[in-house]
């Protein structure tokens, strides 16, 4: 029965991905318009608008969502906490700090307040965010002295998050120009994804997903508790370190390309577990697919809801994800 449900969920997710990808090609700056789309296809702009903008953007949104869904499933399994999300270990605050540093450096360098900042300002925001996200997790790992203790790791993650956010705040005080860029980064955006982003995201997913699935038995064993997992002969500290690195890589890549897209990583694994609970090998795969579908759906909605204007996609995922989280908490209290 559950086997059946699992297969059905994957089929539904695959179908939804296909439909949404098509919708992503049709939906654009002028909202939903089939006539407009066919006209566009016949015009000279088809290659540019559909081929160079809508297609990579839609695929990129799906891939970003998939990485976040995978990272969310990893985090929840790793910390045995259904409320864990991919940003728990300091990757979000690290990435946002790095973005602020680059933005502020641009502002300060041009004012000749800090001539050395010129170099920093030339570092791309994407590269900075990726390095920042990994740096945040690395700092957490150092503070927690490795990944042996779950609680210590969580606490270190929270501390790193608070401290790095405070440093970003401090920097935005010195360079208020950085504030707007930072805000947009915090809201998440899929609007700047091109084919090069897709290539990066796809290779990231192709590397992290199979590796995570290969280690899924560790996550399954962790469900029983750390002692039981150890008694099964698993080299827990090392395996956990690898899982944390996978989590950091997936999150860092997603964050660097699309900013802090809230709640996709949290909601996707829940969705999967709710409809088709199973071992982690399945949950990881299905969470990635669910994350992709969620973010792509949000992206299509963000483009069309107030067309020709556009909503930041993170606003949509935060609103719907927030409502979903509240429902979830409510249900937990009832049971």
């Amino acid at each position, binding site marked *: 029965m559950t086997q059946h449900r699992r297969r059905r969920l994957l089929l539904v997710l695959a179908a939804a991905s296909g439909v949404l990808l098509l919708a992503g090609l049709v939906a654009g700056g002028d909202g939903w318009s089939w006539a407009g789309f066919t006209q566009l296809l016949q015009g000279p702009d088809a290659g540019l608008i559909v081929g160079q903008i809508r297609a990579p953007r839609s695929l990129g949104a799906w891939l970003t969502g998939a990485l976040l869904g995978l990272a969310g499933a990893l985090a929840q399994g790793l910390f045995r906490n259904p409320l864990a999300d991919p940003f728990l270990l300091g990757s979000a605050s690290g990435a946002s700090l790095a973005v602020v540093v680059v933005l502020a450096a641009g502002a300060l360098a041009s004012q000749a307040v800090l001539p050395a900042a010129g170099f920093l300002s030339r570092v791309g925001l994407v590269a900075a965010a990726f390095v920042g996200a990994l740096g945040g997790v690395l700092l957490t790992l150092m503070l927690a002295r490795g990944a042996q203790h779950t609680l210590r790791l969580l606490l270190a993650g929270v501390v790193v998050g608070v401290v790095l956010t405070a440093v970003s705040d401090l920097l935005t005080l010195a360079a208020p120009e950085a504030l707007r860029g930072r805000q947009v980064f915090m809201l998440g955006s899929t*609007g700047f994804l091109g084919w090069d982003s897709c290539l990066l995201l796809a290779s990231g997913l192709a590397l992290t997903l199979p590796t995570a699935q290969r280690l899924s038995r560790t996550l399954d064993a962790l469900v029983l508790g750390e002692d039981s997992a150890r008694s099964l002969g698993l080299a827990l500290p090392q395996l956990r370190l690898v899982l944390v690195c996978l989590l950091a890589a997936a999150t860092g890549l997603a964050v660097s390309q699309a900013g802090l897209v809230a709640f996709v990583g949290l909601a996707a694994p829940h969705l999967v577990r709710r409809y088709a609970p199973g071992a982690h090998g399945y949950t990881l795969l299905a969470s990635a697919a669910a994350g992709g579908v969620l973010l792509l759906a949000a992206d299509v909605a963000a483009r069309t809801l107030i067309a020709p204007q556009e909503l930041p996609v993170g606003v949509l995922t935060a609103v719907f994800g927030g409502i979903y989280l509240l429902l979830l908490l409510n249900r937990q209290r009832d049971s």
Partner: protein
Amino acid sequence: MARALWRVWLAACLLAPAWVGAAPPQRIVSLVPGLTESLCALGACARLVGTDRYSNWPAEVQALPKLGGLDDAQVERIAALRPDLVLAAPSARAVQRLQALGLRVVVLHTRSHQDVRHNLLLLGAELGDPAQAQDLWRRIEQQMAEAAARVPAALRGRSVYFEVESSPYAAGPASFIGETLARLGLHNIVPAVLGPFPKLSPEFVVRAQPEVVIAEARNLRDMAQRPGWAALRALQRQQLCSFAGEHYEVLVRPGPRMGLAALQLADCLAAMGKDAR
């Protein structure tokens, strides 16, 4: 070897006209309000095909498609407009994406008088009318000089606090506003090392006792209610320049209306000087 060189030379000759003698852009997108204003001041408003959502002057740009902000620019709509020139500010992700799509993006700072001058001259050259840009800058300079002359001698050297935001953020001497204030002979209470728009401690402002306070009307209205700010002598003696709506916007836009901004400030100071007598 010689043949390879010959080919390179030939390619350069063929490509050179595209670089040197390129036709002036006819379809321009501006993502910075100050640059939108500059283009229009240079008479190229009709060549604009879209702007960011904050560009609102002159009135005719309000009817143009609004393409998001600098940081959340709508790439697809910009590309669909097929612009041959996009004007942007640095550090925006949109710049890289638009360039990757093959659009010509010119990135400009708008932070100091020098920046504004540089931008005007550059845009003038782009539009194929550098002389007009020179004239425009000369006009701005004249307005600045005229404004400086209008400031009553008694007010020269007075200390000033220009509030850009009530938290409070001030316009420091390094900002274009600070440069205008310096041209008017006022002394900024903010030290230059704090940068263009530093966040100040409220206590700093009270202790600095600026002789003139300049702020947006709605911020100035409640200023005396801030703890301890009632002790500001400038507030007690009404040595204030209060600006609302479009008049305030003129002050905080680095663009061709900087001269007008200086005149506005000078008029306020002149009225203040009259009251003092």
